[in-house]
Structure formats: C-alpha cells, structure tokens
C-alpha cells in the first residue's frame, strides 16, 4: 500500500466480494493478454520515503543557479520581480489550490469571483472592455489571438513586427501553419516597428509593447494603419509598464494579450505562469477560454458563473473559438492578488522606480567603452545595447564574477550581433547595477584587448 492509497488486506477482500470477482486482475479482463506489460515499469525504481524525495529534489535544485545565487539581469520575457508573501500564502490555500474548473458555481464562488476580479484588473490595465480568465502564457496567447483574427476577418496573413518576442513569433508560426495562415515580418528600425503596405489579405498586425528590444512603441499610428486596411491589431503587452504607458485600448488595439508572470508569479524556469487575453466588445463571442460573469441566484443574491460557454470546446466542439480547457487559473489568481497588493498607486510607483533605475543603468552602461545603445527609444525596465566584443565571451566572463548580464540577442536574431538585452527589476539594487557596470565594462575591455579569460 502506498502512502496515498488506503486499501488494507481486509478492505480488499470485502471490496472484491462486493464487486463479485476473485482478484484485482479480473477487473482488467478487457485488456488483451498480449497487451499487458507483464513486468514492472523499467527505470522507475522503488518508491521512496518523503524525506528521500525531498533530498533528491533539493539536490537537483542545488545544481541550478537561481536568481538568489547570481546577480541576474536576465529578462527577455520573464522577470525576477519580488513576489509578496501574501500571494503565496493565499494561493497555497487548499480551497484555491485543489478544486478544478468551477463547473458547479454554487460551491465555486471563491474561484469565480476572483476570476471576475482578475478580468476587471486586466481590463483596467489594457483599456479593453473584456478579458477572459487566462490562457497558457504570453506566446501562446499571441497564437490564440491570431486564431480569433483569422475567423473575425476571413483573411489569410499576419504581419508580425520583429519586435514581438521570438518565442511568440515562433509559436504563432507553428499554430498558423496548423490553421492555415501565413506569417510575414515587419522590420524594426531604431527600436520602432515600420509597417509595410498592408494588403487586403492581412488579417492582423501583431505588435509588442514594449517590444523585444525594450523600446516603447507608438501604437496608435500602427493600429490606425491596420484599421485602415481592414485588419485587426494584436498587441503583446508587458503588464507592469502598462501602469505608465497609453493603454492598448485607447491606442486602437483590438486584442491585447501578454505574459502574466511578472504579476505575482515565480520564474519557475519558464512556467507555470499565465497569459492574459483582452478584446474589444465586437470580439466577445470569439474570445477563447473561460469567462466569469455576474448573475443572481434564485434568492436574488449576487453570484458568478462561467458564461458565454457556447464559445467553448465542451459545447461547440469543432466550432469552438479555441480548444483550450485547463488554463492557468491559479496563476491568474496570483495575478489579481498581486495587483491588489500593488494597488492603483503602488503599480505606478513600481513602474516609475523601474523607469528610473533602468535609465540609470542604461546611461552608465551606454557610457562604457565598447558599448553602444541599440536604440534611443524610451524604455521602462529593459534596454538593448550592442557590444563591440563577442557577446557570448563577455557573458562567460561576467558569469564567472557572479553577474549574469542579460540575454544575447544574436541567439534568436543573428542580425543583432553583439546585442545584449538587460533587464532591471526592483530587486536589482543600485549597488548591483554598479557591479554590473564594473563587471561588464571590464569584460568588454578584456575581450577588446585580447586578454585571456
């Protein structure tokens, strides 16, 4: 008997008696003998005690270099923001952690109401009237938005800014190949997206705010050009910068999506986090995923239910707006708790702090010999520089000093040779930024002078 089951020998006898069979084996009679495994699963070993499993998982954790052991300026889609204690305390409560999708609303008001609150918070951030209750992550949200645009316009092509996260572009390409759409890219010059002439086959343009190089885009003219051409505008937004930036909704974006990790979720080596998904009113019936809505019970009390379910796979099957079922509810809950913790003013204060510290880091690093800014556009918490030295070698030198200087851009875009993307969160102190300046400056200098590493 494992520690998670509880059938004693006497239970087993009585249970088999009640069923009317002589052995557990007989319950599997429908499985042809030739298809029985007939041996233990290989390589899985014996079960272990709880403390042994803890020890093994701890040993694996110790072979990772986390943001606790290195001064990390990595961002590029996920960021080492501080997660307040109350988020983890609340989301680890059994009542939020262990139920499933709220199919029975009368006993799921906690989950449904928090979804409604989450939706409201996302609407506030994006400036759009309707948000769903979460999708998998930022990149998959972009692909899901593409599916909406395909059906909303009946057109065949996406024009995607090179400033969109490379994982999102690749995810969109994968899915677009599936649902039969073409993807073409729009250039980024001096940190800003330049749209080509938009033909009448374009279903949507896809932008990012700020873009992958950290630059704040001017969305309104881009969205206006799309509208003019009968195309939708999809924008992948970083939620914390939205505290300060014009909202996608006021700039004419039709579908605002994004990666929600920075809203109270851990890095977790890339997941689980959540994707958010907000749309204009006319697109509500094309929205993918769960949506909580307000209603009344038979006694007139306010309550919440999953609504507009006729969009969804369990009702509409192949005509559904998406195949998504299980999404990232717990991570989205973390998101709304985090946003409540920051509050209206706190979110702005945090974003302003990021702007100031990032500006400080940008000006100091940009002043180093052999380092140039990749663009001069405004940034919030991430900026791109170009090194006059092999970036991978500079990276290795910095890491040997306990500093991870950021993401080498040439890994996903060979045209950005020597590019380095540097992210600042409120957890990166001035002292740590100064340390980066020192270590990065020395590493670039050493490479340029040909000093052996």
């Amino acid at each position: 008997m494992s520690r998670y089951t509880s059938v004693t020998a006497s239970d087993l006898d009585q249970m088999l008696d009640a069923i009317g069979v002589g052995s557990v084996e007989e319950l599997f009679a429908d499985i042809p003998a030739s298809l029985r495994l007939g041996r233990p699963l290989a390589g899985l070993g014996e079960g272990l005690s709880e403390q042994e499993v803890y020890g093994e998982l701890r040993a694996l954790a110790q072979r990772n270099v986390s943001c606790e052991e290195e001064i990390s300026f990595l961002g590029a889609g996920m960021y080492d923001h501080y997660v307040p204690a109350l988020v983890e305390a609340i989301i680890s409560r059994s009542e939020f952690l262990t139920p499933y999708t709220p199919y029975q609303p009368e006993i799921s008001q906690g989950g449904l109401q928090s979804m409604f609150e989450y939706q409201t918070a996302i609407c506030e951030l994006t400036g759009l009237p309707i948000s769903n209750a979460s999708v998998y992550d930022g990149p998959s949200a972009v692909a899901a938005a593409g599916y909406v645009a395909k059906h909303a316009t009946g057109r065949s092509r996406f024009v995607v800014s090179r400033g969109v996260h490379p994982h999102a572009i690749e995810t969109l390409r994968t899915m677009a190949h599936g649902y039969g759409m073409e993807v073409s890219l729009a250039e980024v010059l001096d940190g800003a997206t330049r749209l080509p002439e938009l033909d009448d086959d374009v279903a949507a343009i896809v932008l990012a705010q700020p873009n992958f190089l950290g630059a704040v885009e001017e969305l309104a003219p881009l969205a206006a050009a799309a509208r003019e051409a009968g195309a939708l505008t999809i924008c992948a937004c970083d939620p914390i910068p939205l505290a300060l930036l014009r909202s996608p909704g006021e700039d004419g974006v039709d579908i605002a999506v994004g990666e929600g990790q920075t809203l109270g979720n851990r890095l977790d080596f890339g997941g689980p986090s959540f994707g958010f998904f907000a749309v204009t009113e006319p697109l509500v019936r094309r929205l993918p995923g769960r949506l909580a809505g307000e209603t009344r019970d038979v006694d007139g009390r306010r309550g919440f239910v999953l609504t507009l379910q006729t969009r969804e796979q369990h009702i509409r099957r192949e005509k559904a707006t998406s195949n998504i079922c299980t999404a990232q509810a717990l991570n989205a809950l973390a998101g709304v708790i985090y946003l409540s913790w920051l509050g209206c003013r706190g979110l702005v204060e945090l974003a302003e702090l990021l702007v100031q510290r990032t500006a400080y880091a940008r000006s100091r690093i940009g002043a180093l010999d052999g380092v140039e800014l990749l663009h001069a556009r405004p940034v919030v918490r991430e900026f791109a520089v170009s090194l006059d030295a092999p970036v991978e070698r500079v990276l290795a030198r910095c890491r040997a000093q306990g500093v991870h200087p950021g993401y080498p851009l040439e890994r996903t875009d060979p045209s950005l040779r020597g590019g380095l993307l540097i992210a600042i969160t409120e957890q990166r102190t001035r002292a740590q930024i100064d340390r980066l300046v020192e270590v990065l400056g020395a590493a670039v200098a050493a490479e340029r002078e040909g000093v052996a590493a």
Partner: protein
Amino acid sequence: MSSFLQAADDELTIFERSRPGRRAFVAPPLEVPERPLDELIPATLRRAQAPRLPEVSEPEIVRHYNRLSKRNFDLDTGFYPLGSCTMKHNPKLHERVAALPGHARLHPLQEVDGAQGALELMWRLSQALGEIAGLPHVSLQPAAGSHGELAGVLVSRAYHEDRGEFARRKVLIPDAAHGTNPATVAMAGCEVVKVGTDASGNVDLDDLRAKASEEVVCLMLTNPSTLGLFEPGIEEIERIVHGVGATLYYDGANLNAIMGISRPGDMGFDIVHFNLHKSFTQPHGGGGPGAGPIAVGEALEPYLPRPQVVRRPAAGGAGNGAAGAAADWFYDLDYERPKSIGRLRGFQGNYGVFVRSYAYIRSLGAAGLREVSEVAVLNANYLLARLRQEGVLELLPTAYERICMHEFVLSGAPMKRELGIRTLDLAKRLLDHGVHPPTVYFPLIVDEALLVEPTETETRETLDRFAEVVAAVLREAREDPEIARSAPHTTPVRRLDEAAAARRPVVRQAI
C-alpha cells in the same frame, strides 16, 4: 463550508473594498538620481489615468481572499468524483519542493550549465513518461491536455506532409470523445469525422473501417474511453488505422487506469499525451495550471516541438554553474531540429508542474504507479457495486453493463422519468451533502449522463458514504422531488441564473 458565511450578505469584490489612500505595497528606495519622467518617457506615450486598481491594506486583501476561499469546495475538504478529471490527492511535499529557490527562482533563459538540475529533472521525467507510455521520445512543452492534443495532431500532419501526403486532412474521433478533440482538430486545420459507438460501448469497428481512408491524418482515441471502458478491439483498431497509413493518437485523459499494466505504445499508438494535472498530481488550481507532455516513437520523433532536452556524456566534468556536481552527463536544450513543428509556447514548458510530477513518480516507483491504477479501477468497481447494493442503479443504470475501468457512466434517464428530477438536480442536491458531483451531461452519447471517477486516493468509507448519499437523495426525491429541483439549499449562493448571465454578459466590475 462554514455556515456563518452562508448567511453573510453578498461578498464584496476587492474593487468594492477599495478606499482612496489605502495601500499594501511600500516601494523600496529609489537609490538612483531621479530624472524628470517627461525626459524618460514623453507625455505623448503615457496614459492620462492610471489603471484603477483597488486601494486596500494588506489585512483587507488577506481577509478578502480568505473569505472568498471559504466559498469554494475543494479536494482537500471532500470527495470530488469528477469523471475524466482524476481528482486524486495532491501531496503536500510537492508544494514544498517546487518552492525551493533553485527551482522557483531559476530564470528560463539561464545558461544550460547553470540549469543542469532542472534539465536533468526534465530529462528523467521524460524517460519515466516514455516508459509509462511505451513510446520513448517525449516533449514536455505543451501546457495542458488540449495543448498536447494540438501538438500531437500537428506532429502527425508534419509526419505525413514530410512523406508527401498532403491530402490527409481528416481526423477520426469517436462520438464519445472530449470536446477538446474536435476543437483541436479544427485548430490544426483538419476536418472532424465522427466514428460511432456500438451497443457495448466500444468503437464501432464497421463504422471505423468505412471511414478509414488515405485522407486520414489520425484517429484520436481515449482508452479507456470516456465511458470508462477499455476498448477490447484495440488491436483491430490499430490494424485498421495503420492499414490506411494514418497514425493512432492516444488521449491520455484516462491514463490513470492503466499505468504499469498496459502501455499505449504496446497497443500500437503512435502519440500519447499525458495530463500531469490528472494522473501525476499537479493540483488543479481551479482550472490550471496543468501540463500536457506528449510521447512518440522513432518515426515521429523528428517532428516534436523544439527545444528538446538532450543529454550527452560530460566533457571534463560539469560546467561552471553546476556547484558541487560530479556529473557524468551534460544536459542541453536542442534547438537544431529542422523537421520540428516548432514551438507551442514560451520557454521550456510548465517546469513547476514537472517538479511535482517527478516527485510523485519518485515517491511511488514502478510498483506504486501500478498500484495507483489497480486501486483506481478497484475503487471504481467497488463504488459501482455499492451503488447497486443501495438500489441506486435501478434509477441510474450504468450505460453499459460491464466491468468498468477507473470510472463509469450512469444514465439519469429513468430517474428523470420516474422521480421527475434530472441529473442536474441530483448533482445540485449532492452539494448539500458536502460532496462534489460527478461530471454531468458528458459523455454526450449517454442521456442524462453522470460520469463518476473516484480515484485511488479515496477510502472505502468515503465510497460507502457516497453510495449512501446518492441513495438518500433518490429516496428523498421519491417523497418530495421539489427538494432536489430547488437544490442546493446550504451553499453560499443557491442556483444561479446562467441564462441571464449569458444574455447580458457582465464580465467586469463597473468602476
């Protein structure tokens, strides 16, 4: 659920609790010279009004969400036999190990030499899942079951297209399948062709033969099926599907019935998806996160999403990030996969889910996993037997008179006819007894369906009590059906008007 909260007025939302000037967050010191904001971000790019988030103190936030939590029923509190969802116990150890900073604060773009523990964990989990599936090559990337389905259909399509077979666009799906299957097929640019179910609850083989053709990409099959029945004709199904050159896709929603007993790969399946939030204990979180890895054999391996975790012998010991490791192997992420379908999401997948599922597999080992499936099937059959003893099956007969696997389907049609209560009413009345109802109205092919999945982690006493409660509800309904029709009576809210919610959707707070 605490009764003192039941009588409470409507719970205010966090936005309604907001009062100007209150706060929970205190910003750390700026530390750097402050520059005018206009210099850094021109006013033309800035919003005029900050997002109107709630203004609340920390104690208010904690109390608000604690109160909300008490309006949820959850698996740690009571029986949750939600068919097809495998609501098994979520070990607390898993939350502890997933929260270790070496896992939780590991950046997804950390260099591979600084992520050897994570990559090794992913590699080992892949090996274990491959062995359980009987298909050795695993992609952990998909974020949930339906995402895994999409990966699987796209991999299938890529395989056929690579062989020049572009005409294959049909996907065969039994009529009993989950809704995610047909929705996935549409998203993958293919066409759904429904296959019928025979009188015994199995795939109708004649119908399958008639529809199998060289236009078919794959058959998507859940086995045991959504009816909780193992397909005894699986070998013939395999011959028919492979006979037309199509692939055979295993929807792993019901894998909990056969782990260590029979392997999809040995049945002839080419692709398997797992639901780590079902069979492998990732807490369901109120609707995620989950993870939906897929496993394939040699022929389909080149098409798996990228990157893939690979390992090779370590050259001269571990990298500089692997503190204290005497590693024989070096783990890497392989992006050079020219035939890959590409990415399906960002980064490497839901790693935090992998940590929990790997811990589970290590806790149980090979024998423990087999026991999981044996007890899951034993518990389901015992519960069915107890319902029979209680006389419940007279009004709620099994849809098919067979030994079930880990779950079974009842039909509420006779109950509706004789007692005048529907399956929905029975479900709502169960809420008053502190039991989460089974899945209702699914599978679609059974009238007034209830799909019951007890899982292996429930005790016999819990199963006994459920049978007794259902019997009691039926007895009560014979006396006075109105009690069930107007149920629930003891929950924080009573029956909610879903039609009104859909007619005039209110999906955010007016601020």
